[in-house]
């Protein structure tokens, strides 16, 4: 699957909260074959503070219209610039990048676990799983109810469970405390979120011998394997998150 540089037209920008939005872009060309878990590298023009591109997950894809979505959380200058884009603006990207979540061959019971902005790649993953006959559950953790994102979207995939740190929506606490984990026996967990969250999910999965893949958000300079800046320590040595990841089986990681 060849990577390429493309100028995408912004066709929509839905502001979810003060610091989250879903931006939809369209290519003038046929989209390459994206797989869930992959990401794109977005060029941010117009600031000396955004010299490098910014990695952003593929949130949802409409292959028919050659469109895809990105879920953006504003952290600094780069994401702020994306947040401010309007329909008609253009966004230069390199895509598609990285490996992808493993779609199982067997009849697994699957849980998607996302935290904050980390839910981004799970929508595309969930939709692909559903299209292949799986019925994944979705467990999402947020700080509080005002930061809960896109529940309706994820409800299209399967049952959605929520935790908030303050209990303002769903169960109180962290995702690993949610009751669904004890009431349902999952074969596979796919997880993306803050490192701290992914580590407890990984630990939980290890202990319960559940297949688990996590998607890492290491700092990247290039995104396509030439700078060696994004490495993670694995059983195979230091390897690049951008080409061998961002998705890793937790058994490979030296966590």
């Amino acid at each position, binding site marked *: 699957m060849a990577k390429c540089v493309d100028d995408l037209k912004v066709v929509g920008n839905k502001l979810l909260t003060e610091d989250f939005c879903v931006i939809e872009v369209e290519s003038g060309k046929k989209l390459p074959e994206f797989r869930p878990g992959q990401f794109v590298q977005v060029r941010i023009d117009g600031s000396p503070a955004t*010299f490098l591109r910014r990695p952003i997950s593929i949130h949802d894809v409409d292959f028919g219209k050659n469109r895809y979505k990105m879920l953006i959380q504003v952290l600094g200058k780069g994401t702020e610039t994306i947040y401010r884009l309007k329909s008609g603006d253009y966004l230069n990207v390199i895509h598609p990048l990285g490996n992808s979540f493993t779609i199982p061959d067997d009849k697994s019971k699957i849980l998607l676990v996302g935290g904050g902005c980390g839910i981004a790649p799970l929508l595309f993953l969930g939709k692909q799983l559903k299209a292949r006959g799986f019925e994944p559950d979705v467990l999402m953790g947020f700080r509080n109810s005002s930061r809960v994102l896109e529940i309706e979207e994820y409800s299209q995939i399967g049952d959605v469970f929520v935790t908030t740190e303050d209990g303002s929506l769903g169960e109180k606490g962290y995702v690993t405390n949610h009751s669904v984990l004890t009431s349902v026996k999952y074969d596979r967990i796919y997880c993306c979120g803050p490192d701290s969250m992914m580590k407890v999910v990984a630990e939980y999965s290890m202990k319960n011998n559940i297949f688990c893949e996590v998607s890492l958000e290491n700092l990247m300079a290039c995104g396509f394997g030439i700078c060696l800046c994004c490495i993670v320590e694995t059983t195979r040595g230091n390897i690049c998150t951008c080409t061998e990841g961002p998705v890793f089986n937790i058994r490979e990681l030296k966590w």
Partner: protein
Amino acid sequence: MVNLGINIGDLHFKNPVLTASGTCGYGTELDDFFDVSRLGGIVVKGTTLEPREGNAYPRMAETPSGMLNAVGLQNKGIDYFESNIYPKISGYDTNIIVNVNGSTLDDYISLSERIDRLEKIPAIELNISCPNVKKGGMIFGTNLQSAREVTRAVRAVYTKKLIVKLSPNVTNIVDFAKVVEEEGADSISLINTLLGMAVDINMMKPSLSTVTGGLSGPAIKPVALGMVWQVAKAVKVPVIGMGGIMTASDAIEFFLAGASAVQIGTVTFIDPAAPVKILEGIESYLQRKGFSDIKDIIGYINH
């Protein structure tokens, strides 16, 4: 028609645009974006005798118009290169140059001997300027006597074109250029990264696992140009300039200042097709200005 060819001794480069070591992998990573055989040369990733795991994460920090890296020469070593990479890249129709690194004099010698035997590698770039490794690396490039010794030792065993890459982290770069020229370097390339640092004020700790790292990108272009100009005036061998080249216009600054060729580094992370765009831009500049040969503008500002 504009003639873009340049020579290092009897080694011909079809054009003066090369990729810089550590910023273009082995060339193959760029295949998706353009035909790398269009370039004058590819300087592959820094290579060592033994495999190296490099430094711990985080290895990168963005800085104003630049970036710091602390990769620390991660590579799989010469054996792996010879059996797995070399066969894949020796088909490119361009000069493939290996960037040679070592912790000791013997490392440099043995590695150069090994590479001397690889038919499709017409030149090495001796990296005596990596700021990201504790032993060797920049030590050789910041001490005149060591720079002399390593160049002499490698020259004694390496029969093809020897390019020596200088560190900018020195008081007088011209002294180093003269020493490596005296010891038989066929060409001098500069600059490697500047030593630099960044601090994460939220975490209250250094941004890099190694505290300091190597600064590259447009931020360092003025420093690179100044050094290329000084060195090109002082030596007779061709000088390969690099440091912060983003556009053809940047590359042309280097030619005017005296560089016979340029290497394209960090910009490739941002625009993987930059090397070939820069090549095209150089050609149209020459046409616009009415020059028929790249050599006409090399060192032009000194005329």
